[in-house]
């Protein structure tokens, strides 16, 4: 694996931003996730890898309670954000999701203008007091998403008119406009071409200075490129979790090893 470009491994020393303990997920009868314990660190990109159907997306969606919208899903165990249980009765999932944003596999901009796409979050959460402030937020978010230069002249053009990579960056801008603390990304590049992928990866690396980023990916190369920590899932189990460099160069578990050497998956 020596020819893989491994991102520099300066792991932030922050304490855990989110902690999961004994998380189990059932879809009806299907036990999709089995007893997952994990700490997501602040200021870090964490990658979830593993073969198809192993429960990566499922776990990711537990982190901002998107699984609440699936009628058959049942989540057990404890997940804390800054020490507060997010599955507590008193927690409003809507507020939670403003703090733990999400970007999806397929770019899904709203069929509205670019501006409205980004401004939507701040608007519904009442984050700004004036139009000028909102403009400011939109601009900053687009800049952070490395999209500002490409779209600043057509903020009122439809967001769906952008190319795939731009759309995905727009979705990222939309997610960071509500200034979340954690950003979850479910295979954000799988629908993109190589150039767009490279741009988004670069972006993820920059975002890490402000947010914790959790990214699900099918491509080990991508995990190696962008993440500092990697978790390997297999058949609903968290098999191994550790620093990316270590996972890719020196996996402890035989399953991890066969996966990253291409024997399975």
């Amino acid at each position, binding site marked *: 694996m020596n020819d893989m470009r491994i991102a520099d491994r300066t792991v932030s020393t922050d304490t855990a931003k989110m902690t999961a303990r004994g998380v189990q997920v059932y879809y009806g009868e299907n036990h999709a996730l089995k007893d997952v314990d994990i700490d997501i660190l602040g200021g870090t990109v964490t990658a979830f890898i593993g073969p198809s159907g192993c429960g990566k997306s499922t776990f990711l969606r537990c982190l901002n309670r998107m699984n609440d*919208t699936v009628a058959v899903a049942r989540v057990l165990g404890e997940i804390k954000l800054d020490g507060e249980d997010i599955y507590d009765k008193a927690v409003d999932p809507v507020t939670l*999701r403003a703090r733990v944003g999400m970007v999806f596999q397929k770019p*899904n901009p*709203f069929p509205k203008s670019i501006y409205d796409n980004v401004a939507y979050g701040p608007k519904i959460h009442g984050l700004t007091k004036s139009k000028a402030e909102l403009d400011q937020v939109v601009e900053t978010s687009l800049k952070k998403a490395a999209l500002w230069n490409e779209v600043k002249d057509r903020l009122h053009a439809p967001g769906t008119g952008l190319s795939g990579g731009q759309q995905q960056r727009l979705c990222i801008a939309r997610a960071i406009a509500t200034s979340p603390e954690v950003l979850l990304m479910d295979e954000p590049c799988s629908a993109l071409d190589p150039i767009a992928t490279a741009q988004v990866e670069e972006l993820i690396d920059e975002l890490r200075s402000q947010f914790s980023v959790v990214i699900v990916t099918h491509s080990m190369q991508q995990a190696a490129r962008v993440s500092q920590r990697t978790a390997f899932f297999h058949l609903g189990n968290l098999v191994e979790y550790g620093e990316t460099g270590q996972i890719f160069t020196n996996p402890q578990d035989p399953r991890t090893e066969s996966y990253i050497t291409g024997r399975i998956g």
Partner: protein
Amino acid sequence: MTDATSQTGLPGAQPRKSLHAADARTRRRNASEARFRFFGAAAIAISILALIVLLTSVLGNGLSAFRQTFITMPVALDAKVLDKSGTGDIEVMKKVTTIGYAKVIEKALTAALAEKGIATDGLDAKQISGLLSQEAAASLRNQVLADPSMVGQTVDVKLLANGRVDGFFKGRVTMDSAKLDSNISPEQLELALKMREAGLMSVSFNSGFLFGGDASELRPEAAGLGVAILGSAYMMLIVLVLALPIGVAASIYLEEFAPKNKWTDLIEVNISNLAAVPSIVFGILGLAIFINFMGLPQSAPIVGGLVLTLMTLPTIIIATRAALKAVPPSIRDAALGIGASKMQAITHHVLPLAMPGILTGTIIGLAQALGETAPLLLIGMVAFVREFPGAPPEGFFDPASALPVQVYNFTQRADPAFVERASGAIIVLLVFLLLMNAVAILLRRRFERRW
């Protein structure tokens, strides 16, 4: 891989032939393909042929209703007859009935004929005035009462000709049929011909058909659709205002919020059942609930509107649910992922995207309601209504008719002149339906933001 080790060749395997040589089987398959395709095209052709036949028969019968024969002549409004007190007092003038006016017109017609030098041998006065519609006197009376200063002058008036004369110019009545007809004689028709040559009689556009009220069987030439059009419009307004919001609200609940359990299943069966319940049953419902139980007035658009609302609701709900279902879940996810509540995700994103589908469904439902006859028969909408209903909302409680019912009504009348009017009413109905469909298409284009 133990299975695959049995490396026997497939028994069906045949020696390869060139790609270019189509074998008999391929030819047969291609022939069957062509046949299938032909059946499909034939099905389309049959449907369109049926449409053309229906439309031509309606248009052929009904277009003539939009033209009407009029008699234009000077009428001397004799003050002695029409204003006995000589003071121009309206109340006194109202005492003169249409019978009095009929005499005035009769005199004027004789005079006009004499002036043009048209011989009227063999026809008595009654037969001559029989060329005029019975409506003529009423319309003249209304004109005079509207403007009493006309009395004493000679004015040019345009009066309706009798339905049979009108039918003669439209080809419905012939000299032969007139011989047998107890309501008109060939001599009268000869006279009508001469009057037309002399410019006393002419066929022109009949605005009364679109804007006038209904008329009794004695004067088919005066019957119009005004009240029916207005009644239908009122009912559609009620249906739109009630069925659209209720239907959309119900669909949102059922599609987005309702837990999937026995109860929602029940509601679902129930709604699809309502969509299929014969419309006549809704008439019975309307009669029992709205008229007998709630005491709403007979023949009023409000009752018709409510019945049609209940009838349209399932259609709208089904269409709306389909439209909501068609909105990609990724849009919902996107909104939820930013921290929008479910309600916000739906009102801000899903509904606008589903709008074209909802509107199309609504308009289809409305169109269905517009053409519906059977339930209205049971709630007293098959009435003879000559007065226009008032402006809404009070007008909703005034008696009115409706277009399909008016068609039904016309088809029941004895005088053959009503046949063309029934077809004419159908044309108006079809035009409305087409307009609504066009609006549906336009709206769909408008709202369909394939960004």
